[in-house]
C-alpha cells in the first residue's frame, strides 16, 4: 500500500491529524458493561465514531454436538457489520473480511479465557458493528473482553485493542477510517496489559524496522489507555453502588 492520492491533509504542519488529534492520541473511548438483559454478559463500546454492541452467551451446550471438546470449552466468535454501519449498504451475509476478523478476534481472546474449567461447553461471542469508522477489529476485541468478564467467564487478563500505523510518513496511534484508506500502514494490536503479552498483531502496509518498533511501542501505550477505560466500565457496573476498595 503506497497510500492513495487524496485531497485530505492527513497531517498538517503543526502535527495535527485530519480529525484534530495529535500523532500519539487515541480517539475518545467509552464503554458500558451489561447493556443487554438476555445475554449472560454484554458491552457497548464507542471507539471514536465506531459503535459496537457485544453479547456473550455461555458457557452453554454445544450445538452441533460434534464441535464439543471433552477436554475444554470452546470459544466461538462472530464479528458482523450491520447493513447500515457503512456509507453504502453492506450486504448482511458474512463476507471474507468478517470471517477473517471473527477468526483473529477468537484467537486474540483464547489466550485470556480459561475454558478448561468448562469442558464440553461453548462460549459464544457476538459482536455487532452498528457504525464503522476504521479500527473496528480492535474496538470489537476490546468490547468482547469486557463482555466476557461481565458474563463471569474466568480470564487470565482483559484484552485491550488499539491500532498503530503510518500516515503522511509519520507513525500515528489509533488509525481512523480516512487514515486507513489514504495512509501507508495499519498495525492492529491486541494486548494483555497485566501479563504484558500481545495476542493480536496484523500489519497491512509497509513499515521499516524502526517504524515497526515505534508502532508496537505506541500501540501498546494505546492499549494501556484503553485498558483503563475497560477497567472503569466494569468497576462502574459492579462496584459503583457499594463501598469502594
Amino acid at each position, binding site marked *: 500500500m503506497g497510500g492513495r492520492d487524496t485531497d485530505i491533509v492527513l497531517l498538517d504542519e503543526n502535527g495535527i491529524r485530519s480529525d484534530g488529534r495529535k500523532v500519539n492520541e487515541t480517539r475518545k473511548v467509552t464503554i458500558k458493561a451489561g447493556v443487554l438483559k438476555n445475554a449472560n454478559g454484554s458491552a457497548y463500546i464507542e471507539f471514536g465514531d465506531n459503535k459496537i454492541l457485544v453479547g456473550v452467551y455461555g458457557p452453554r451446550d454445544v450445538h452441533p454436538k460434534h464441535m464439543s471438546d471433552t477436554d475444554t470449552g470452546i470459544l466461538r466468535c462472530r464479528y458482523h457489520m450491520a447493513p447500515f454501519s457503512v456509507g453504502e449498504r453492506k450486504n448482511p451475509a458474512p463476507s471474507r473480511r468478517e470471517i477473517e476478523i471473527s477468526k483473529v478476534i477468537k484467537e486474540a481472546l483464547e489466550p485470556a479465557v480459561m475454558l478448561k474449567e468448562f469442558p464440553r*461447553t461453548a462460549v459464544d461471542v457476538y459482536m455487532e458493528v452498528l457504525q464503522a469508522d476504521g479500527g473496528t477489529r480492535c474496538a470489537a476485541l476490546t468490547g468482547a473482553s469486557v463482555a466476557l468478564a461481565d458474563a463471569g467467564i474466568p480470564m487470565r487478563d482483559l484484552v485491550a485493542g488499539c491500532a498503530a500505523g503510518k500516515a503522511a510518513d509519520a507513525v500515528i496511534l489509533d488509525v481512523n477510517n480516512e487514515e486507513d484508506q489514504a495512509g501507508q500502514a495499519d498495525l492492529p494490536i491486541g494486548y494483555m496489559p497485566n501479563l504484558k503479552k500481545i495476542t493480536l498483531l496484523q500489519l497491512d502496509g509497509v513499515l521499516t524496522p524502526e517504524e515497526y518498533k515505534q508502532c508496537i511501542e505506541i500501540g501498546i501505550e494505546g492499549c494501556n489507555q484503553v485498558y483503563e477505560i475497560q477497567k472503569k466500565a466494569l468497576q462502574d457496573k459492579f462496584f459503583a453502588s457499594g463501598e469502594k476498595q
Partner: protein
Amino acid sequence: MSGEKKRHVIPGEVITSGPYRAEQNTIQVGDNIVSTIIGLSDVHDGSVRVIPLTGGYMPKDDDLVIGKIASHSSLSWTADINSCYVGMLPASDVFGRDYSSSSDDMTAKLAKGDLIAARIVNADKTRDPLITISGRELGKIDSGELVKISPNKVPRLIGKRGSMIQMIESSTNSQVTIGQNGLLVVSSDDPNGLLKAVQAIELVEEQAHVANLTDQVKEMLESKSE
C-alpha cells in the same frame, strides 16, 4: 475473619504477592496472585480466593439444587439445574434397584416440567452431574412459588448461619427451599406471607452488595405487616 480487607477485583488484577495459596478464581503468575473473575478478594490464612459477583452456577458435590425435569430416556431423567450442565437422575434412584424399563412407567413418577429438590451426588465435569432425590427434604415439589435469583447471591440470602433466611421465614410464616443454583421455592398457607417473602427475597437480590442488609429487610418485613 482475619487477613487483609476485602477488595473489589477484576480479571487480571493482582490481589497480592508472596507465599500465598491461589484458591478459588485466582491464578498464580510469577510471585503474584491474580484474580480471574469480577468479585471480592479474600485473603485468609495464607490462601487467596475471590468471591464471584457474576457468572453461572457450577455443580458441586452435595449441593442442594432445584431442577426442572426436561426429558427422560428409558434409564434416566434429565433435569435443568440452571447450569451449563444438565442433571442426570437415574431411574433406579426412584424405583429402586429392581427397576425395569418395561414394567415401570417413568412419566407416572416424574413428568416433563415437574420441579424436584435434588442433591448432587457426583459432579466431575467429564460427564453430566449425577443427582438424587432420595433423602430428607428431597423429591418432587408439589406446591409453592418458584423464584429465580443469581446463584452468586444465594449465600447472601442465607446470611450468617442462616440468619437472613430464618428471619424471612419466621416473620412471613413461610418455608423457603433454597437451591444452591439460584432457584428457590417459597411456600406458605398465608397468601400475604408468601407475597411478602417473595418481595423480601427480591430485595435481597437487588441490594446484595449493601451492608446492613439484614436491618433493611427486617424494616421492610415489619413495615408492611401492619
